């Protein structure tokens, strides 16, 4: 822990007012970085020794103003330090710099983020869909996309039809306030 405090201090000194350090939660440190500084902060972290990008994932906070969150989980293997770096991206301006030049593993993670959430990565060597097929018109993991899917047709490549949910998905009932944040099980107002 002492290590990360030093790191926190040195980085907030270098990037004043661009990094917000979230309070320590269960031994995990999270930084929230502004989108414009993200590439610089991550490059500096790589130079600092965070040589493993464990995961790059995205969160869709449907209804909140910066709609997407992009989360980088980093690890410094030499000292077994984990760090989480987040950035908030709004829907209208949803392109981020790619970190493929920093950690090569980000290549497929960014393709998945593009495929599922529609976030574009500038500087990515090969940004195309990875889970769905090329030409699929939607980004399925956004909260306003229904779980059962929508009908699409691409002759000779793939087609898709809405699945019969039959009132599902049948999950054990969560507590009340969580039900509002799972719009998939109910028809959304937008469509």
């Amino acid at each position, binding site marked *: 822990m002492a290590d990360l405090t030093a790191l926190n201090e040195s980085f907030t000194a270098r990037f004043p007012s661009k990094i917000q350090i979230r309070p320590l939660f269960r031994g995990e440190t999270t930084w929230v970085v502004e989108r414009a500084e993200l590439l610089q902060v991550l490059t500096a972290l790589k130079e600092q020794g965070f040589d493993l990008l464990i995961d790059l994932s995205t969160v869709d906070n449907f209804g909140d103003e910066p709609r997407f969150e992009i989360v980088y989980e980093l690890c410094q293997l030499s000292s077994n330090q984990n760090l989480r770096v987040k950035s908030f991206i709004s829907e209208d301006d949803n392109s981020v710099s790619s970190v493929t030049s920093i950690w090569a593993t980000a290549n497929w993670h960014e393709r998945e983020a593009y495929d599922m959430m529609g976030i574009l990565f500038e500087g990515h060597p090969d940004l195309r869909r990875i*889970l*769905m*097929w090329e030409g699929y018109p939607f980004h*399925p993991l956004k909260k306003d*996309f*229904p*779980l*059962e*899917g*929508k009908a699409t047709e691409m002759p*000779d*490549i*793939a*087609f*898709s*039809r*809405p*699945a*019969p*949910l*039959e009132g*599902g*998905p049948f999950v054990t009932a969560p507590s009340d306030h969580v039900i509002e944040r799972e719009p998939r099980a109910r028809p959304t107002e937008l469509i």
Partner: protein
Amino acid sequence: MSNESEINYNSKVEGNIVLTTLEASINWMRQNSLWPMPMGLACCAIELMAAASSRFDISRFGAEVMRFSPRQSDLLIVAGTVTYKMALATKRIYDQMPDPKWVIAMGACASTGGMYRSYAVLQGIDNLIPVDVYISGCPPRPEALLEGLMQLQKKISKEKSLSTLKQEVAA
């Protein structure tokens, strides 16, 4: 005179000759030498491999020759979740198989889409190709696959294969 048995011949005189109908013998040959094309897409493929291994031995039924080439097989075993991305490839494999061909949908995902009622999973391979036997289970035990194979063998034994052949010759 030979002893009263179903087949009235004297094996010492006539050798091992069996009288049967052409259709029955064609069906018998087909059902006992089904060469599967394993379309092992997901977890059911593991149980398919287990059925082919020594403990459950699918080769007792003539089906050990798992030809991974559709042109040389006559039974397509769709084992696993068929995603929309893979669906048309599976159809293409089915189209490449020569007649006579049969399809076993192994497991819940291949039969009806299984637990995956979602945007990415085809709800049953029977939306694309005609299925002869559905095997339920997630995954079905190898014995269930063998039972499905035996049901398919029964189905083949009742087929009117001779009339189909005659139609093909006439056409």
